C-alpha cells in the first residue's frame, strides 16, 4: 500500500521476500522526510524480515526499493542510512570507541563525530572498556551511537527497546524524537505499542508476512 508521497525518502513497491519456507509480501510503503513509520505485529509476523530486506541485507524476490532516491538491492547498499539491528555486531574484546573508529575507517568516514556521540549517548566514561563488559543498556547506547555516526537521513531500528529499563527507554525515545525533529526519518519494527505512540509514528500492523488493514494517517 503506497500513500503516494512524492517527496518520499524511502519508497518500497510490491516487495516480496522469502526466507526458508517463510514468505512475506507483497507490501508497499513510503516514508517522507521527518516521518516515523512503525511495523508492529506479533513475533514471527515478518517485521524483521521486511526491515532487513529494506536494507538490502536479504534478497527480495519481487518489487522495487529506493532510499534517498537511489535503488537498494542485495547488490546495492543503501546510502545515508543508520541501523540498529537485533544483534550488536561489535568485536566485544575491543573498547566501544575502537569499535566506532573501525566503523568509520571501514566506510572511509571522518572520526570527528565519535567523541560528541559517545558524550550524547552517555558512554564517554566507559569508552575505553571492552564491549564485553557493557550492560545490555550500554550496548544498546553504543549501537545507537554507531547508527548515528554518519548523520543518517533515515534510521532503521529493529526492536530498539528490547532489554531496556525505564530510564534507558525514555532516553532512547527522547533521542529518536530529537533526531526526527531534525528531519531524520524513522522506520521501526517493534511490538512496543507505547514506544510507537511516544514517537507518534504511523502504524502498519503485520501478520503472517502481510500488512493488515489500511495505513493509518
Amino acid at each position, binding site marked *: 500500500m503506497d500513500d503516494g508521497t512524492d517527496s518520499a525518502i524511502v519508497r518500497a513497491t510490491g516487495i516480496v521476500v522469502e526466507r526458508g519456507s517463510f514468505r512475506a509480501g507483497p507490501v508497499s510503503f513510503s516514508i517522507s522526510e521527518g516521518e516515523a513509520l512503525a511495523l508492529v505485529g506479533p513475533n514471527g509476523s515478518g517485521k524483521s524480515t521486511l526491515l532487513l530486506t529494506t536494507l538490502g541485507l536479504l534478497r527480495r524476490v519481487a518489487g522495487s526499493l529506493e532510499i534517498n532516491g537511489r535503488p537498494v538491492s542485495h547488490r546495492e547498499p543503501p546510502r545515508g542510512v543508520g541501523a540498529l539491528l537485533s*544483534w550488536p555486531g*561489535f568485536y*566485544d574484546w575491543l573498547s566501544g570507541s575502537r569499535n566506532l573508529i573501525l566503523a568509520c575507517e571501514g566506510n572511509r568516514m571522518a572520526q570527528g563525530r565519535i567523541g560528541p556521540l559517545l558524550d550524547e549517548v552517555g558512554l564517554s566514561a566507559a569508552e575505553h572498556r571492552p564491549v*564485553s563488559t557493557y550492560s*545490555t543498556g550500554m*550496548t544498546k547506547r553504543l549501537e545507537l551511537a554507531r547508527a548515528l555516526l554518519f548523520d543518517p537521513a533515515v534510521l532503521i531500528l529493529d526492536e530498539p527497546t528490547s532489554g531496556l529499563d525505564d530510564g534507558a527507554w525514555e532516553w532512547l525515545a527522547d533521542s529518536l524524537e530529537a533526531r526526527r525533529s531534525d528531519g531524520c526519518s524513522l522506520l521501526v519494527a517493534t511490538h512496543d505499542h507505547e514506544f510507537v505512540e511516544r514517537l507518534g509514528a504511523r502504524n502498519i500492523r503485520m501478520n503472517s508476512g502481510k500488512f493488515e488493514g489500511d495505513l493509518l494517517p
Partner: protein
Amino acid sequence: MPQKHGVQPIESWLARPRLEATLLGPGWRFSALTVMIVGGLGGIWPVAALGASGSGVFAAFVNGCTATATASLIWLPPIAFLCIGRDTELGVRAIEISLGLGPRGLQARGWWNLYGLAFAAMLVGGFAGVVGGVVTNVSAPGRFSVGLVGSVGAAQSGAALSALIVVALLCGSLVEILGDRRSSLIAIWGTQLLTLALLSVLYFAPTLAFAQYLSPWIGIWPLRASSSMSPLFSSQLSYGAGGVALAIWIVAIRIVAAIMTPRRVSLPSSKERQE
C-alpha cells in the same frame, strides 16, 4: 512413583533432539566430512598405496574403522567440545541445573554422548571405507571379495580403538578444563602440532628424546619409529614407556579437570548474551 515437582528424568540420553542439539553445533560438518574422508581412504589405501590386488568388503569396513579411530586426534576435538563444553558455553547447562538436573548427571550425559558419537563416527568411517573399497575395485580392478582379505590385523585395530577411547578422554577433559571452544581447540590441536615439531627435531637430535614425555599425545602417537616407513615425525618411545607417560598424563589432566569443572561458570559468554 512420579515426581510431583521438578523435571522428569530423561528417558533416553541419546534422544533425537538432544543428539541434534549436540551433533549439529559448530564444527560438526568438519568432523563429519573428515570422518568420511579418512574412513574412505582407509578402504582405498591397501590397493592404492600398499600394493594389495584387491580388498574385501568387510576388510574395507575394518580398515575404514581403523583409519577413522587412528585419525581421531584430528576429528574428535570439535565433537568433544559439542558434547562436553557447548552446554556450558551457551548457558544451557545453567538453565538445566536450575530446572533440577544435577551437574554430575549432566556431566555424565556429556561423556555418554561423547563416547556414543565417537563410536558412531568410527562406524560411519567404516561404511565410508566400504564405499571407498568398492569403488576402488572398479577403478583399479583386482581380486574382489567379501571377506577380510586385505584388512589390518587385530592388533592394529585394537590399538586404533584404544587410541580413540584415550583421545576422547583427553579431549573431553581438556574441554572441561578450558571451557570455551576456541581455546579448547587451539590447545588440543596446538599441542599436537608442537608434538609434531618436536618429533621432527628428534630425528636430528636424539638427545632430546626425553622431551617426548612433555606431550600428552605421545602415548597414542600413530607414527612409531619401529614400525613407520620414515623415522621423521615418529615417536621413539617404546610402547611401554609411552603407556606409562600416557597414564601419568591422564591422571594429571583428570585431577585438574576435577578441580576446574565445579569452578567453571555455567553462564553464557557476553557474546552469547548479546546474540
